[in-house]
């Protein structure tokens, strides 16, 4: 019996439709969009930028969401983020000095492959490096962001202020370099791999079960549009959070050890998810259930 069990576990590694086929990013994107168009024919492409709310059967949640958006609870955190963004470093410069176009209308290209550094860069990474380079000593630059919620939320607030400057810009990820494609492929592999005691891949909850209700009061979003609202504030969390914290929570939900905040593995997953949301407008920061 035990032998069979082990064998079955080995065989049970998730092989999704898309993961099975060797495909280049452009064909992945086509298949991915077609999947959701077929699954939810009434949902308009741009509406996927708004989490699970536009999905069929979510009308009640959508009503609540619309009401929340009249006075979005993330405004307080966002105001803090704007303050950090605008406050001069000890040398008099500000965050804007580190970014092309003063940081405006550029977040749609994040995360991006840095060919010089040979790594995927997230907005959080660039913001932190900018601060360090200019002599800032904020706690979130050195804190353990897995444990120190206060510091992590500060980083989320700053990142939210950064993304706000690109609201409405459409996601455009450059995968022209081989290193970018390799990172994308690594993210893709992780995205389709089953994990944890519950044996779920990201694809299980955010493709197979998208639009369903898990446990009765937890609708599941479609992966299309996933990253465009983040940093986001969830009703239950009552604070802005980074997308890596969202990933960590998804890992914990399947009773798996969550990855590390800022880890390369998450950067690659984020690159994969963001590329698959190509063409959608950025809505961050956003409210979520």
């Amino acid at each position, binding site marked *: 019996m035990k032998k069979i*069990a082990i064998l079955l576990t080995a065989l*049970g590694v998730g092989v999704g439709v898309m993961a099975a086929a060797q495909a280049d990013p452009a064909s992945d994107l086509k298949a991915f969009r077609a999947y959701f168009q077929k699954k939810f024919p009434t949902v308009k492409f741009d509406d996927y930028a708004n989490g699970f709310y536009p999905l069929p059967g979510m009308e009640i949640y959508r009503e609540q969401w619309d009401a929340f958006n009249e006075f979005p609870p993330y405004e307080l955190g966002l105001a803090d983020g704007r303050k950090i963004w605008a406050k001069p470093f000890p040398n008099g410069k500000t965050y804007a000095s580190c970014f092309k176009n003063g940081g405006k209308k550029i977040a749609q290209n994040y995360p991006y492959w840095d060919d010089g550094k040979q790594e995927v860069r997230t907005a959080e990474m660039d913001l932190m490096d900018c601060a360090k380079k200019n002599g800032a000593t904020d706690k979130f630059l050195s804190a353990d962001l897995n444990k120190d919620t206060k510091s992590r939320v500060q980083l989320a607030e700053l990142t939210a202020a950064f993304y706000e400057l690109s609201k409405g810009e459409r996601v455009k990820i450059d995968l022209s370099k081989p290193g970018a494609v390799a990172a994308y492929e690594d993210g893709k592999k992780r995205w389709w791999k089953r994990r944890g*005691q519950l044996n779920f891949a990201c694809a299980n909850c955010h493709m197979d079960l998208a639009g*369903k209700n898990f*446990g*009765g009061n*937890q609708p599941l979003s479609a992966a299309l549009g996933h990253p465009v609202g983040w940093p986001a504030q969830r009703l239950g969390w009552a604070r802005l959070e980074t997308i890596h914290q969202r990933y960590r929570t998804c890992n914990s939900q399947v009773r798996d050890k969550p990855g590390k905040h800022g880890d390369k593995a998450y950067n690659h997953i984020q690159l994969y998810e963001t590329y698959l949301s190509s063409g959608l407008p950025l809505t961050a920061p956003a409210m979520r259930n």
Partner: protein
Amino acid sequence: MRKSPITLFGTCAIVLLSSLALTPAAQAAGGAVPGSKVCKDKENPPKDAVTKGGCIVADRRKGVCINCHQIAGAAQAGDVATRLENVAARFAGEDGKKRLRDQIYDARKANPNTVMPPFGPHAMLSNDEIDQVVEFLLTL
């Protein structure tokens, strides 16, 4: 161990009545997941397989079944999978019981792409617990 619908109905009625009368003895429940009063009764913990199985099914940390399956007696449940009803009829006989046990032990046997967790191989439930869940499901 299998019950006819009539004795089943009787058992439900007895459970209902006894809980009304606050009789401490936990009776063999069936047909619906037992309430938390029955499952969390420290002085008189459930002793029979059916009630124990029902309590496992209802427990969001333990069986997690109601995250995905609706089932009689569970107020808030997910709609990811089939509603667990008519189980006794659909999994009749020794063969049916074996299929049911296999489904809970490792759902990947019937459907390699399933999202139902492999309760046995991933040690989410012990063999005894799986047997209890089966006994309970067969009262549905």
